């Protein structure tokens, strides 16, 4: 049951100047610039022709032309299949980790959480190393073992099924964490109550455990669907060489020479609408059952004993983990220290040349690392500050109209990165704001994309600090600001640090918006990796990728340490 924290409170008015209005207006203006401006330009471009007259021509071309319909269909199939595979793998894994006595279940959970830090495009490149038809390590192994001809291959990652596989690999952790956490939160009493009435383990699982986990599975399927639908990196790396497009790569290609921005705008709108619809659908599926746990104290769940199937369970879990974690990391490490990326490291083959090349010879490295670092720090700091203020205002109902602020802050959750990129491109390539070609436009993109997750985390943190704690300080004579500073701020310190870290990590990983907005002087790490993939320099990518993984892992680790999140998602929402 929820605590009375959400009960309406009488808004307080201090004597004289009332600061609530200007604060509201200021932050509403910031959010409007961040969100409404790009979306409006997007809509404007989609509905006008080159001369600026109203037209629906762009949409007609979109529907009539097979070059647009095919990507739409591909994207739909891709998202559906990925969502299905993710749930089919994540649900049993989540159950094994949360509710059974499977050996090493803590390690399994940790490893899945660790696979979060792998950006999907890096995973896709690692799988290129593993399963490209000719040079892929797994295909070489296959030929070695079976003696097949040099032109035969077992796996081809440059295919629709390859793309589905790789996207599922890096989406399934989201679903897994949702399901495992939902199972953790389901009180053991609910299952015990069923057992007391005479239900055996399987009946209880079928009638109680599974239905209770169902909302998490549905939510997970939706997250997976959205993720697969809006990803840019993996399809760009795997689908375009195979000669087909998804919506995101299509939108991107419309910006290549000769650019057709009005078509890109028109193609972005369906993606945006679909995202909004799916998010609405999610809240409808959950319905009035509410699924919030009823009642007071609960006991720890009893673990299901797997008996002799324990070892089978852990073996299966390890095989699943091999796909997003063990194999790709092995391939990246191998490429880092091998003279030829597609050859296994041996004594004669071992080299540090790749490291030397990336850090001392590649001219872009310096600039890119500097850009990424500056953007990461700025976006994390600004994003955390905005999230902090808005969540305070909404959690404490400090000004009238706080609900609008809350809505605006969560709205970007429905804007795919690439769509935002297109919108920002339109907004800031013209007066009065000419920001294209500067780091500012990337900063705006990052802050906007990070806002929903940052806001939600800060808000739940504020909810956990009961307003009476502040009230107690004020009744003893502290002013509102002093109460905030002395009571609330220390209690929220760890949350602030965590949010900062999550935004920073999100910036390092981001590719879909950056790919639309970068120029040669404002390249970031993810874009450089993408470029190097185009030029086939896989060894350099491996070095940069591992570099990136080490930085993000350290930051995630730090954030986890500070907030003691334990098994909870380290990068939720990013």
């Amino acid at each position, binding site marked *: 049951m929820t605590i009375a924290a959400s009960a309406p409170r009488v808004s307080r008015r201090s004597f004289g100047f009332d600061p609530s209005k200007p604060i509201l207006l200021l932050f509403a203006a910031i959010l409007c610039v961040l969100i409404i401006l790009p979306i409006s330009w997007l809509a404007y471009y989609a509905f006008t022709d080159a001369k600026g007259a109203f037209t629906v021509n762009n949409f007609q071309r979109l529907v009539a032309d097979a070059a647009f319909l095919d990507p739409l269909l591909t994207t739909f199939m891709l998202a559906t299949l990925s969502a299905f595979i993710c749930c089919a793998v994540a649900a049993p894994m989540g159950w094994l980790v949360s509710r059974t006595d499977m050996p090493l279940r803590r390690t399994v959970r940790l490893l899945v959480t660790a696979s979060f830090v792998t950006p999907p495009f890096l995973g896709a490149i690692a799988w290129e190393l593993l399963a490209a038809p000719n040079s892929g390590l797994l295909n070489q192994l296959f030929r070695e073992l079976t003696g097949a001809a040099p032109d035969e291959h077992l796996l081809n990652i440059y295919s629709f099924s390859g793309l589905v596989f790789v996207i599922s690999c890096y989406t399934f952790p989201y679903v897994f964490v949702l399901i495992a956490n939902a199972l953790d939160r389901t009180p053991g009493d609910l299952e015990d*109550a069923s*057992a007391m*009435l005479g239900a055996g383990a399987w009946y209880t699982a079928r009638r*109680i455990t599974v239905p*209770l986990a169902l909302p998490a599975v549905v939510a997970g399927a939706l997250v997976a669907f959205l993720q697969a639908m809006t990803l840019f990196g993996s399809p760009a790396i795997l689908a375009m060489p195979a000669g087909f497009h998804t919506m995101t790569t299509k939108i991107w290609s419309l910006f290549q020479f000769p650019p057709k921005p009005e078509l890109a705008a028109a193609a972005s709108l369906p993606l945006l609408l679909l995202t909004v619809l799916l998010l609405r659908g999610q809240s409808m599926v959950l319905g009035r059952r509410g699924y919030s746990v*009823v009642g*007071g104290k609960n006991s720890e769940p009893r673990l299901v004993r797997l008996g002799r199937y324990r070892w089978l369970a852990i073996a299966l879990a390890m095989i699943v983990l091999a796909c997003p974690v063990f194999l790709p990391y092995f391939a990246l490490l191998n490429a880092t220290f091998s003279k030829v990326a597609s050859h296994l490291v041996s004594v004669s083959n071992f080299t540090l040349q790749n490291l030397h090349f990336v850090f001392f010879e590649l001219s872009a490295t310096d600039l890119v690392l500097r850009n990424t670092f500056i953007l990461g720090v700025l976006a994390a700091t600004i994003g955390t500050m905005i999230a902090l203020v808005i969540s305070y205002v909404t959690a404490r109902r400090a000004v009238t109209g706080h609900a609008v602020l809350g809505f605006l802050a969560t709205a970007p959750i429905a804007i795919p990165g690439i769509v935002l990129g297109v919108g920002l491109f339109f907004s800031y390539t013209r007066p009065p704001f000419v920001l294209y070609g500067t780091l500012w436009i990337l900063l705006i993109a990052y802050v906007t994309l990070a806002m929903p997750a940052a806001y939600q985390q800060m808000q739940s943190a504020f909810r956990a600090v009961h307003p009476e704690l502040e009230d107690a300080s004020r009744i003893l004579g502290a002013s509102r600001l002093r109460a905030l500073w002395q009571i609330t701020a220390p209690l929220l310190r760890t949350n602030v640090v965590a949010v900062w870290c999550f935004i920073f990590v999100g910036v390092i990983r981001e590719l879909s918006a950056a790919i639309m907005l970068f120029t040669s002087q404002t390249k970031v790490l993810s874009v450089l990796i993408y470029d190097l993939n185009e030029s086939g320099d896989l060894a350099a990518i491996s070095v940069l990728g591992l570099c990136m993984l080490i930085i993000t892992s350290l930051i995630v680790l730090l954030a986890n340490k500070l907030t003691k999140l334990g098994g909870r998602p380290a990068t939720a929402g990013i």
Partner: protein
Amino acid sequence: MASVELRNLTKRYGSNAVVDDVSLTVEHGKLVCLLGPSGCGKTTTLRLIAGFVEPSEGEIRVGDRVVSTPANSLPPEKRNMSMIFQSYALWPHMTVAENIVYGLKLRKMDRETIAKKREAILATTKLAPLAQRYPGELSGGQQQRVALARALIVEPETLLLDEPLSNLDANLREEMRFEVRRLHDAYRYTTVYVTHDQSEAMTTADLICVMNAGKIEQAGSPEEIYDRPRSEFVARFIGSSNVIKGKGLDQSHISLADARIRCAGAPITAGAETAVSVRPHEIRLSSTPPQQADNVVPATVIRQVFLGNSRDYMVEVKGGTQLRVVTAADVAIPPGGAVWLQLPPERCRALVG
């Protein structure tokens, strides 16, 4: 018919005995309360009976079946028991009606019987208008009644209740106490009830087991426990009591402020410091020396409070021992006044240990 019997039941976590050599027999149709402060092992005892926890030593019998031994424990679903959880454990994805008939469906009853039983229990528990609601949409008291209905509809041999009223507000708690007893009388299953609230235990139980540190301190009827506490822990935990310490004179006398006080209860060892319990309202207080001089001690009023239908005194006898005394409201003696206390011999219970 099913009595419940615990024989030398022990549960250890590591070297810590949470339940320590507990033996208890609950006859069929009786309602027994396990009463004690939090951490005394009462909930673990209940979960042992339910089969959620396996004993380290000892055994549990239901009727003539052995259901729990350290080596072999019948799973909860095979015990034909019902349980009401402290959290109620209502399934949030099922309506009230679905929650209630869950156990019947498991027993593969036909649709008509299920419907008939459902309507009957909905009527008894006054839940009929709420049948299609989800648990999240009910108040605490309504949720509690759903939990009761769900447990009772299967007509269990044994009903287990784990602090079922602790999440309700005071008024509702009082009402539900009598409801639990009424339903017990109507159905007559063997009931084990865990609570830390002594008045809840008093109003519902046939037999109260006061537990402390994993052991049963005293088992008996509510009257027995209240009137004849055997240990200081029981005397203090059940109702309020003065526990006075004095030197033993012989088998049935102690010395308090130079007066010989005759006591009942455990035999007293001469020369040993002995604790005696006497309840505040059983002491007679007067402003003049009573004619009958047995068990009388002079004292001084320290403070007194008017409580409407009674007056609450704190008095001090020679030697500094303080006692609480409850008198009729019209006995008004100001602080500092001299009084005489008469302690009825049969109400002074010498305590063990």
